[in-house]
C-alpha cells in the first residue's frame, strides 16, 4: 500500500482529532499489527462496508469488548508462534472508561501482550455528544446540558491512566495529538515492551466540543499548556512528566472558544482554574517518583 496505512476518504468530520490519532497510531506501529477496535466514531466512520480505511488487519465486535477481543488475538498469536505481530486495542473514552472498563481492567490484570489506546474526545461523540466518565468538569454535553440550575457535568474526569497504572503494568502514557512526535514515540516504546500497555491520547472533537475545524490541534495544545491535560509516562511504576510549561497558561485560554464551555461564569472558570492548578501541582510533585 502506498502512503499511509490509514487511508484518506473515511467519513470522519473535517478536522477530526481522533482520525489524526488513528493515522499516527499506524504510522508508529507499521504494517505488522492487528487492531481490535471498540464501537465508536473511529469504527463507524472508517469501515462503511464494503470500504475500509484500514490497511492492516482490523476487527470490531462490540462497544465494550475491544480489550477482551485483543486478549484473544494476542493469545492466538502466541499459540501460533506469530508473536512478532503486535496487537493494539483502540477504544474511545466511553468504550474504555465506562462500558468497556471491566474488559480493559481484565486485560491489563491478566498481562496480555497488548497495547490499549484510548482516544479521548471527552464524550460519546458518535451518539451525539453525551457525557462520559472522561468528560471534564462543567463541560456541557447533550446529557449534561448547561442548565440554569446545573451547569453541565458536575463531576471530575475519571483518572483512567492512573487506574491503568494501578494494575502494575509496565507502561502507561498520556499523549496529545498536538504533540505528535511524542505520541508516536510513546506508541513505538510501548510496542517494544512485552505485556499490557496503556496510552490515552487527547483528541479534540470538532462538533462535540464546538470548535472550528481548523482549531483541533490548537485546543489539543492549549489543553497541555494550561495543565488541563498533562503529558507523562509511568514506566515500571515510575512517573515521568514529559512536558512542563515554564508557566501554566490560564485555563481561560483553553476554555474560550469551545461551545461546551460557553456557559461558564467567571466563578466557574475560577473553580476550574483552582482545580487544575491543585491537580497539576500534585502530579508534578510526584515527578520521578515510584508510584506503583
Amino acid at each position: 500500500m502506498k502512503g499511509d496505512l490509514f487511508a484518506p476518504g473515511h467519513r470522519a468530520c473535517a478536522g477530526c482529532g481522533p482520525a489524526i490519532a488513528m493515522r499516527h497510531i499506524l504510522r508508529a506501529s507499521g504494517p505488522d499489527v492487528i487492531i481490535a477496535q471498540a464501537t465508536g466514531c473511529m469504527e463507524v466512520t472508517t469501515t462503511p462496508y464494503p470500504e475500509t480505511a484500514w490497511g492492516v488487519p482490523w476487527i470490531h465486535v462490540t462497544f465494550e469488548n475491544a480489550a477482551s477481543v485483543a486478549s484473544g488475538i494476542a493469545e492466538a498469536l502466541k499459540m501460533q508462534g506469530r508473536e512478532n505481530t503486535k496487537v493494539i486495542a483502540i477504544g474511545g473514552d466511553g468504550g474504555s472508561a465506562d462500558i468497556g472498563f471491566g474488559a480493559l481492567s481484565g486485560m491489563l490484570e491478566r498481562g496480555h501482550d497488548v497495547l490499549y489506546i484510548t482516544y479521548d474526545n471527552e464524550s460519546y461523540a458518535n451518539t451525539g455528544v453525551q457525557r462520559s466518565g472522561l468528560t471534564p468538569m462543567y463541560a456541557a454535553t447533550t446529557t449534561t446540558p448547561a442548565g440554569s440550575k446545573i451547569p453541565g457535568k458536575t463531576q471530575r474526569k475519571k483518572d483512567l491512566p492512573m487506574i491503568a497504572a494501578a494494575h502494575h503494568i509496565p507502561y502507561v502514557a498520556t499523549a496529545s495529538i498536538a504533540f505528535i512526535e511524542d505520541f508516536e514515540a510513546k506508541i513505538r516504546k510501548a510496542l517494544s515492551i512485552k505485556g499490557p500497555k496503556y496510552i490515552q491520547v487527547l483528541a479534540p472533537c470538532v462538533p462535540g466540543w464546538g470548535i472550528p475545524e481548523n482549531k483541533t490541534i490548537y485546543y489539543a495544545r492549549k489543553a497541555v499548556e494550561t495543565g488541563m491535560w498533562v503529558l507523562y509516562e509511568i514506566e515500571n511504576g515510575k512517573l515521568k512528566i514529559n512536558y512542563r510549561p515554564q508557566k501554566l497558561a490560564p485555563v481561560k485560554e483553553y476554555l474560550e472558544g469551545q461551545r461546551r464551555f460557553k456557559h461558564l461564569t467567571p466563578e466557574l472558570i475560577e473553580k476550574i482554574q483552582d482545580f487544575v492548578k491543585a491537580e497539576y501541582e500534585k502530579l508534578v510533585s510526584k515527578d520521578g517518583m515510584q508510584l506503583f
Partner: protein
Amino acid sequence: MVKKILEGSHAVAEAVKLCRPHVLGMYPITPSTHIPERLAEFVNNGELNASLIRVEAEFSAISSIVGAAATGSRVFTATSSQGLALMHEVLYAASGMRLPMVMVVANRALSAPINIWNDWQDAISERENGWIQLFVENVQEAVDTVIQAYRITEDERVYNPVMVNMDGFYLTHVYEPVDIPDQKDVDEFLPPLNYKYKLDPKKPLTHGPFAYPVPYAMLRKRNFDDFHSFEPIVKEVHDEFAKKFGRSYGDGIIEEYKNDRPITIVTMGSISGTVKELVDSRDDVGLVRVRLYRPFPKERVAEALEGKEMVLVIEKDVAMGSRSGALFLDIRDALFSMRDRPRINNAIGGIGGTDITREDIAKAIDELKEKDGEIHWFEMRG
C-alpha cells in the same frame, strides 16, 4: 478407545482436549464450571497445549475467543444461564461474522428468581442468534457431539459458530461410562484448523465493519439463506463420525425411537431417556428426539410426524407471549402444510429443575390424547 466412568463435565473436557483447541475463554458459572476446571488441570499439567484465559466476565469469555477465532485459532468456551445471557450481544456478532467457534452450554434456568437448576430457557432464548444449536441426550453424545461440532464449524461451507447444549446437572454432574476416543482417531477426523479469513498482516482484512441499510440487509439475508444449508452438513459430519467411531444418534438431525406408533412424543435432551423408558412400557407411543435444534429441521420433522394421531411436545422452556413452549411453535409450524395433520399438544415441565417422571408423561398422554392445541403444565415437584 477407552471406556471410563466420568462425570459429564469431565468427559466433555476430555473431548475438548482431544480436539486440541488453542485458546479457551473461561469464566465460572454453575453448572458448566467443572468443564473449565478440568481443562485448567489439563493445561496446567501440560496435557493440553492451549492458552486458557481466565476472563473477568462471560462477556469477555466469548469476546476473547471471537478475537482468537478471527486470528485463526481453534477456540472453546462453556457457560450456562446468566452467563449465556451476558454473552448475548457477542453471540450475534460471532454468527454475523461467521466465525468457526464451539461452545458448550450446560442448560440452566434464567433469573428471576435466581435458580441454578436445569431447564432450557437459556438456550431457547438464544434461538434467533444465528448459532447452530445441538441438544444431546447423554454424556456419550455430549463427547461425540463436541468433536463433531468442530468439524461442522470449521467446514468452509459452514464457518458458523456451534452451540452444544447439555442439560445442566442431569448431564454435567452425572457419572456415566463413556468411550473416550483415541487421540489418533480424533486427529484423523479433525485436521488442524485452516481458517481462510484470519487476521493476518500479510493479507489485511476488515472484520465486523459498519454497514448502511442495503448492504446490512443483504448480508443478513445471506446468513439467513446459508443457515439452512448447514443441516445436511451436520448430518454428513454425524454420518462420517458414525462410520469412524461406531456411534450414531438417529440420523444426526433427529432420532426416531419406535416411531411407528399412533402417538409421538417430541422432545430434546436428557428427558428423552425417560421418554424411551415410557415408550418401552407401552405400545401406543413413540419418540422423535430433536438433535439439531437450529437450524430447525422442519421437513425432516414433518416427515417423521406424518400420519400420526397425536403429537405431544415436551419441553423445559416457555415462549413468553406465545402461550406455549418454543419447541412447540416449531413443531406446529412443521405440521402446517400437512393435509391431515396430527393433533398437537404441548407439555411444559422441568422448569427450574423440577422433575418430570415417566408417570407424569403417561398421565399427560392420557389427558391430551383426544385434545388439540392444549398447553399442559406438568405437576411441579422436585
